[in-house]
């Protein structure tokens, strides 16, 4: 069987050699275990840099925002492709600029989960189709991939790219019967006081590095509201009120747009699950408007238009 990596390299080399694209955006082997780095290749000879494994979690749609190249090849798993759709709908890139090299995805590994399950520092990792093996000084641990997926990947119902011009591998079976919102329902069931406290604890470690915001392909505003000075919407310090305002408003700006790609949570250096906020909005969008972001280039997003059957009665 040909590996995804090989197909990607062959596809990238072919697209670059034929002049179909000026660059291909993908991943190269990282410098530490369980980490690959987004990169670009411009020459067919460089296509050998590209890799694919369970550590390609970063959402590459982030890297095409406002790019000027006429033709860009981009490697896209399910969530990346949904964010490309959103990018196209929001005029951050044109469909004609993209040659989407879709990768059917079986989910990305959660490196923290794996690290927590190992007795020491992980020095080497390798994987098969269904298992990941981590090795360190004096230990070897093998995990079923399904047990160490990122939380969002374990709940993912759109693993196959929704748009693609090339496909690196056979489509995978989509997960059925997934309960996507158990965590959100648990928070919804809390009293306002409990909820206040819960979020206070959740956000306490935040250092406001904005990795969550910047890792998110949706956050492309030239000046983010937290950086505005006239008026200054939110204080810049570590006061919990400012931290909370930042996280809530950031989430609201993703309403009806978030694909739960997990970029924010993965990027966070202090392990905050801020996906809880965006998932609540995602759940509401689904329940109120039957809307899931980034599935179609034809349908306008839920927050983008009005329908007479809007469930909110105050608006009629």
């Amino acid at each position: 069987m040909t590996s995804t990596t090989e197909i990607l390299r062959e596809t990238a080399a072919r697209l670059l050699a034929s002049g179909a694209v000026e660059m291909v955006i993908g991943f190269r082997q990282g410098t530490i275990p369980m980490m690959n780095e987004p990169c670009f290749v411009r020459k067919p000879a460089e296509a050998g840099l590209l890799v694919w494994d369970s550590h390609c979690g970063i959402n590459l749609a982030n890297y095409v925002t406002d790019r000027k190249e006429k033709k860009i090849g981009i490697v896209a798993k399910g969530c990346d492709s949904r964010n490309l759709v959103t990018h196209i709908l929001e005029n951050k890139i044109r469909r004609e600029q993209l040659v989407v090299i879709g990768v059917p995805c079986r989910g990305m590994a959660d490196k923290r989960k794996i690290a927590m399950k190992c007795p020491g520092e992980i020095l080497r990792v390798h994987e098969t189709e269904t298992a990941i093996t981590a090795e360190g000084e004096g230990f070897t641990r093998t995990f079923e991939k399904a047990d160490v997926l990122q939380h969002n990947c374990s709940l993912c119902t759109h693993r196959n790219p929704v748009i693609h011009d090339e496909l690196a591998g056979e489509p995978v079976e989509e997960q059925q019967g997934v309960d996507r919102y158990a965590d959100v329902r648990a928070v919804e069931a809390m009293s306002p006081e409990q909820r206040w406290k819960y979020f206070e604890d959740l956000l306490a470690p935040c250092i406001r590095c904005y990795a969550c915001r910047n890792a998110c392909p949706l956050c492309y505003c030239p000046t983010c509201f937290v950086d505005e000075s006239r008026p200054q919407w939110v204080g810049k310090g570590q006061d919990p009120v400012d931290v909370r305002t930042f996280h809530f408003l950031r989430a609201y700006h993703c309403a009806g747009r978030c694909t739960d790609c997990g970029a924010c949570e993965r990027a966070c250096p202090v392990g905050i699950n801020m996906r809880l906020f965006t998932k609540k909005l995602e759940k509401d969008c689904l329940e109120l408007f039957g809307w899931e972001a980034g599935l179609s280039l034809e349908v306008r997003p839920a927050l983008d238009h009005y329908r007479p059957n809007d469930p909110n009665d105050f608006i009629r």
Partner: protein
Amino acid sequence: MGIEPGRLQFSWISSAESTKFVTVAAQVTEAVRALGPNTRFIKPLAEVA
């Protein structure tokens, strides 16, 4: 997000519906008054000695 129910309310009032605006404003004011002063999203700041 842990704000008490009733402290934040939404209404849709056309610019022509002046009486509705008055009624809603009065209702909201009363409702918030009943809740008492807000304790959340309030920042403490150092006082000048």
